[in-house]
């Protein structure tokens, strides 16, 4: 009866194809493999879904169109008309996170978004991109983002650092939210799975909880992709629709 429960084992990175360039380890890992799968699946969905261009969409075309419309709506309502040009970016981001999350739910696969470096890289791209967009669109005027209106000058001394800080914290909150949700959810699944395996017949109870948890995780996977995309939209809207 000595089944070891190692709930964190699922997050280990394994080198599938060891590769080194100079002293840098650029091995093709299981995380990289899952990312490749996600990208291939998304491309396949969109390419195959839009190939027929039927007036009455079939299943795949419906799926492709629904995802397109969903993100297009999100960009339209949150950024406004100036956000149309950023639709491809938000769409890519949303689909990638959504597929990475869902692929992670398949047993024995790997959850890419449970690695903070992955989510932080995504969030950093958003953060840097939004800042560049703001500077390009508004130039020096972009710094007014940090100056609240109608505030007496002495208070600005205090408020501007606070605003600056709360702006710089964005990539951290954005990445930690996604990472923490994924890590916690999958760890919990593994713990209850371990219980179910180790306590014999009574294991049906943790198994039942696990079934409910999987349902919750499906919700969380979709919700977190949505949250990431919508926060990207809101940040973009900050930079584009400056007061």
């Amino acid at each position: 009866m000595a089944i070891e429960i190692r709930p964190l084992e699922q997050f280990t990175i394994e080198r599938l194809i060891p590769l080194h360039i100079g002293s840098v380890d650029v091995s093709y890992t299981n995380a990289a493999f899952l990312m490749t799968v996600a990208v291939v699946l998304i491309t396949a969905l969109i390419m195959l879904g839009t190939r027929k261009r039927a007036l009455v969409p079939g299943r795949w075309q419906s799926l492709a169109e629904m995802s397109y419309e969903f993100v297009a709506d999100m960009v339209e309502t949150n950024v406004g008309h100036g956000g149309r040009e950023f639709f491809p970016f938000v769409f890519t981001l949303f689909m990638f996170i959504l597929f990475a999350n869902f692929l992670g739910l398949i047993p024995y696969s790997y959850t890419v978004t449970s690695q903070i470096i992955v989510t932080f890289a995504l969030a950093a791209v958003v953060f840097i991109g939004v800042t560049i967009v703001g500077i390009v669109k508004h130039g020096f005027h972009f710094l007014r983002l940090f100056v609240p209106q109608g505030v007496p000058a002495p208070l600005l001394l205090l408020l501007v650092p606070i605003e600056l800080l709360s702006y710089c914290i964005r990539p951290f909150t954005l990445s930690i939210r996604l990472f923490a949700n994924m890590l916690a959810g999958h760890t919990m699944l593994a713990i209850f799975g371990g219980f179910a395996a180790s306590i014999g017949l009574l294991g049906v109870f943790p198994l039942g909880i696990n079934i409910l948890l999987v349902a919750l995780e499906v919700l969380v996977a979709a919700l977190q992709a949505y949250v990431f995309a919508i926060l990207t939209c809101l940040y973009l809207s900050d930079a584009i629709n400056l007061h």
Partner: protein
Amino acid sequence: MSENPAGHMNSPKGVALTGFEALFMVRRAPAILLPVPVSIVALPRMSESRPPDPLARLGEKIDKARAERVRRQPAVGDRSAMQQGLGLGVRIGIELVVAIVVATGLGWAIDRWFGTRPWGMIVLFFLGVAAGMLNVYRAVTGVSGPVGFRPPDVGAAASEGRSDDEDC
């Protein structure tokens, strides 16, 4: 699950039945996920009772399904409100904690670089608390707009009008 699509297809002239159907669907809203594909699948079967313009009828059906969906919205509302609440709660926790941790860490790093121990950490800790509070306040009131955005005259109206502007 299996009887629901049947209930849908058995009403070729759904217009007469809409009242009943709507009632039906409000009660079972979670079970009926995609009314649109069902009606598309059902289309060929009913083609004998109506004049032959499949596209016009399809448009009609889609419009009807959309209207139905809009009408059904409130029934689903309370469940998704709970989910949104959950999302908002998680967001607030992370917002507050991360702001403080990141700011304090930044202060610690500044102290190490400039040798100003303990002051950088102390000052940035309090700034972090303030920034975290500010972010939470913005997340809750729905004033999720620009970081320093609070137009002086529209301020009160904005916090009311945009509070449903959802972002969990």
